[in-house]
């Protein structure tokens, strides 16, 4: 028997189950599905049950909160004290975090029980979850399909009902796209709403944590826990605590939904377009008005993102140098000898220390990560900064101005989460360009720092899920959740679960 976050909370409140019972049931499901889906990198039964017992104890002591004892999964990007935190990388294969991320602290304080650490693209770089050092995750709807990325493990786990909800992060679509590919609901909040402290950084000005769950209602409950000011993050916004579920039941009468022309042109698969169309028809039935708008520079989001994100990543990942933690190569002395023997000029030679850096990083990082580090180092390097990095930052402003112009004509913007349904494992092979182009509909939201939600709206020709993305203006999370919730009250796509 599986539950939504809300159902689990109600059962616990009613005393119909215990945290330990829930945790044990889900651990059993995870174990059973692990071979088929590989959705988790780390499961630690003892740590989980200890948390569950603690939750039951505090409930018995009468100081349980709304979610005390409810089990969730954490994306392996959030540092959690005592848990291996690998970020999908060999670099951190043996890294047991000595501290908690802000998000993990809040979840623990709310009494949520950690079921395990979900698989992900290495350092959150990827759209298919094939870039994990711990193996690809499979899509629960079709094991030949990718689950999307980079939060593929979290989305697959929720879709396969291995956890009622999971934390995730979104730098260029990493919550919304896998949620869409796996037929679940995922929310990417306004930049600065969820603390980045303890969230291993990919691209600091774009990264934002958020929830993936079966329903918008559960996402609201999760965001109530995850959101909030954190003095340890200088980009965390100082704002009054809000209840993100406050508007769930508002009718959608008068809601204006904008359809950006540029998002529905060539490149959008017919089956995805059809599912989106019928979803928008449903929103009309719920009283929303759909208007056409234009986001003229949409296609520039790809080049701007693939300059800015790698630039920040190249610097963020410099700390992985094999000195204080993480992988240190055993082969650096051999490389040192070898390389310097072949070096033609003095300046080509490396010191033993440089050899240690180069081999440790070469062995610890996968190729997608290396490509982004190299791209980033290049666009920031002497003579190229203005032409690439600075230019991309200016285009970034133009793109966010386009969104503001769009919100002049509507309350929310509707868009596909991806041009197609989930593609086959290995289909895009090792072709970065094909991968990058598939991010077209999600990147803009991160560049502008806006909130966005993806929720299931049907299935494509091959039976793989289709997700609709709704984009709101800054701090409109409650509005996005309200719209998605009303849609889910009128439809049942979100209740469909894949057969395991």
């Amino acid at each position: 028997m599986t539950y939504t976050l809300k159902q689990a909370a109600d059962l616990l409140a009613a005393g119909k189950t215990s945290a330990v019972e829930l945790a044990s049931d889900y651990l059993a499901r995870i174990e059973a599905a692990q071979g088929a889906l590989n959705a988790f990198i780390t499961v630690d039964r003892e740590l989980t049950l200890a948390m569950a017992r603690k939750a039951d104890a505090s409930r018995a002591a009468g100081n349980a909160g709304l979610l005390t004892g409810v089990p969730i999964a954490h994306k392996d990007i959030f540092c959690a004290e005592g848990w291996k935190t690998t970020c999908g990388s060999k670099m951190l294969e043996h890294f047991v975090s000595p501290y908690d991320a802000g998000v993990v602290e809040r979840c623990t304080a709310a009494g949520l029980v950690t079921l395990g650490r979900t698989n992900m693209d290495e350092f959150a770089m990827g759209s298919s979850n094939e870039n994990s050092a711990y193996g690809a995750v499979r899509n629960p709807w079709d094991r030949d399909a990718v689950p999307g990325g980079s939060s593929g493990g979290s989305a697959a786990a929720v879709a396969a009902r291995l956890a009622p909800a999971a934390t995730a992060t979104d730098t260029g679509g990493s919550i919304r796209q896998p949620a869409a590919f796996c037929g679940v609901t995922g929310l990417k909040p306004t930049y600065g709403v969820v603390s980045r402290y303890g969230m291993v950084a990919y691209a600091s000005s774009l990264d934002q944590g958020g929830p993936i769950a079966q329903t918008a209602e559960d996402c609201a409950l999760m965001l109530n826990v995850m959101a909030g000011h954190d003095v340890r993050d200088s980009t965390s916004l100082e704002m009054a605590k809000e209840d993100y579920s406050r508007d769930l039941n508002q009718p959608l009468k008068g809601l204006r939904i904008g359809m950006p022309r540029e998002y529905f042109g060539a490149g959008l698969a017919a089956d995805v377009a059809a599912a989106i169309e019928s979803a928008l028809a449903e929103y009309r039935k719920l009283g929303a008005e759909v208007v056409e708008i234009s986001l003229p520079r949409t296609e520039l989001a790809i080049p701007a993102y693939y300059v800015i994100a790698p630039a920040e990543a190249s610097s963020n990942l410099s700390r992985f140098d094999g000195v204080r933690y993480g992988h240190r190569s055993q082969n650096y002395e051999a490389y040192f000898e070898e390389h310097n023997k072949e070096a033609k000029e003095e300046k080509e030679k490396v010191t033993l220390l440089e050899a240690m850096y180069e081999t440790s990083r070469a062995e610890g990082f996968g190729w997608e990560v290396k490509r982004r580090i190299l791209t980033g180092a290049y666009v920031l390097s002497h003579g190229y900064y203005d032409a690439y990095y600075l230019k991309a930052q200016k285009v970034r402003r133009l793109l966010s101005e386009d969104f503001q112009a769009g919100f002049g004509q509507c309350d929310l913007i509707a868009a596909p989460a991806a041009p197609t349904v989930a593609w086959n494992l290995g289909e895009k092979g090792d072709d970065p360009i094909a991968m990058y182009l598939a991010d077209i509909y999600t990147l803009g939201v991160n560049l502008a720092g806006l909130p966005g939600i993806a929720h299931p709206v049907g299935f494509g020709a091959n039976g793989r899920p289709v997700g609709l993305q709704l984009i709101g203006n800054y701090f409109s999370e409650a509005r996005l959740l309200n719209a998605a919730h009303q849609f889910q009250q009128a439809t049942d796509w979100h209740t469909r679960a894949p057969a395991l």
Partner: protein
Amino acid sequence: MQWEVVIGLEIHTQLSTQSKIFSASSTRFGNEPNTQASAVDIALPGVLPVMNRAAVEKAIQFGLAIGAKINRKSIFARKNYFYPDLPKGYQISQFEVPVVEGGQVTIRVGDQDKVINLTRAHLEEDAGKSVHEDFHGMSGIDLNRAGTPLLEIVSEPEMRSAAEAIAYAKALHSLVTWIGICDGNMQEGSFRCDVNVSVRPLGQKEFGTRREIKNLNSFKFMEQAIKYEVQWQIEQIEDGHKIQQATVLFDPDSGQTRMMRSKEDAHDYRYFPDPDLPPLVIDEAWIERVRSELPELPEAMQARFQSQYGIPAYDAATLTSSKAMASYYEATVAAGADAKLASNWIMGEISATLNREERDIADSPVAADALALLIRRVMDGTINNKTAKDVLKKMWEAGDSADAIIERDGLKQESDTGAIEAIIDEVLAANAAMVEEYKSGKEKAFNALVGQCMKASKGKANPAQVNEVLKRKLG
């Protein structure tokens, strides 16, 4: 040929804050390795920087003290390079827009005043330390210092000799300690100088190629290093070699500079605005508050000492050479000592004894009010100057008050005319010959008689009175 030396300085001053610039670790010096290195300092995955308000305030203090422009909005940037004492693989610094721009410092070389213009001063984090004792072929890394706030102060290349460079460095050193933003402890690395040196034929417009001497932490080494480097560059050029831009280290043992082997200067730092840190915004109110709390600066105090106490420029300059001496002087005068006498005593006996004992005036055994009492006793004629010097010695050793010592040792000056007349009569009777010489016109004989009288009074007789009475008696 005639060569002109061109020198510019980059000085790293550690700001005296309690906690680090981006973390809440202590900045204390000399603790066990890595016990003051927090998750942020060792750059664990996921940690983030949070700026220390006090470090910004100290930068503002400095900017105001040198009459510089305080940028209302400045940007933190990442300087990317790999080094084991740099945990993040980048240093958070300021690049395009620093917090402080411009400003001036006046230096004095010989009796020449010269104004040196500053380019900028920016906030950044210090790195850790490599411990070079051999750990079976490895180096040890201590990150206690990593993240200590630094203000890097960059001058224009306006110094033309080692002497000017030293004078500039000393002027900045006394300024930052005077306004209390840096403890100035050079042994502990709180004040480190990088010196850019180049030479060019006298009269040539464009600069020669410069070499940077890194991390000089004593004025003595700085002088040796610059002199060696200048000679070396001139010889290279005269031997027909070109100077290659380079970073060098000074080796105190050999007295020579040598190229750094780590190709630090070959780096391409890939500066870009730190996405973890929004722009630093400083408002008018903050600047005005800091301005109002800024202590009186040395130059201003010198001028005030001259006008308020009527002491010569030289005295005023000496007494304001350190904040401690200045306040000691003002306290002495406030306790009733004559301004000029106080100046003489402090610049004379007190300084001499402190230097001899290598003590700072702040912990002088003779406090300002004790010295004032001694000076007052000279002023009111209780003792004469010579006796006063002996009394000071005793005060220094025993710590007793001047009055106690004068009383105990009966040093009170004899001013009772009757007693003095008696002494004089004895002396005259005992020295009839001298009296004759005087009467026959030998002026010198008079001084001899005065000496006899003082001797007979064991130095306690008031010299003025002796003169007067003696003259009368000799008619």
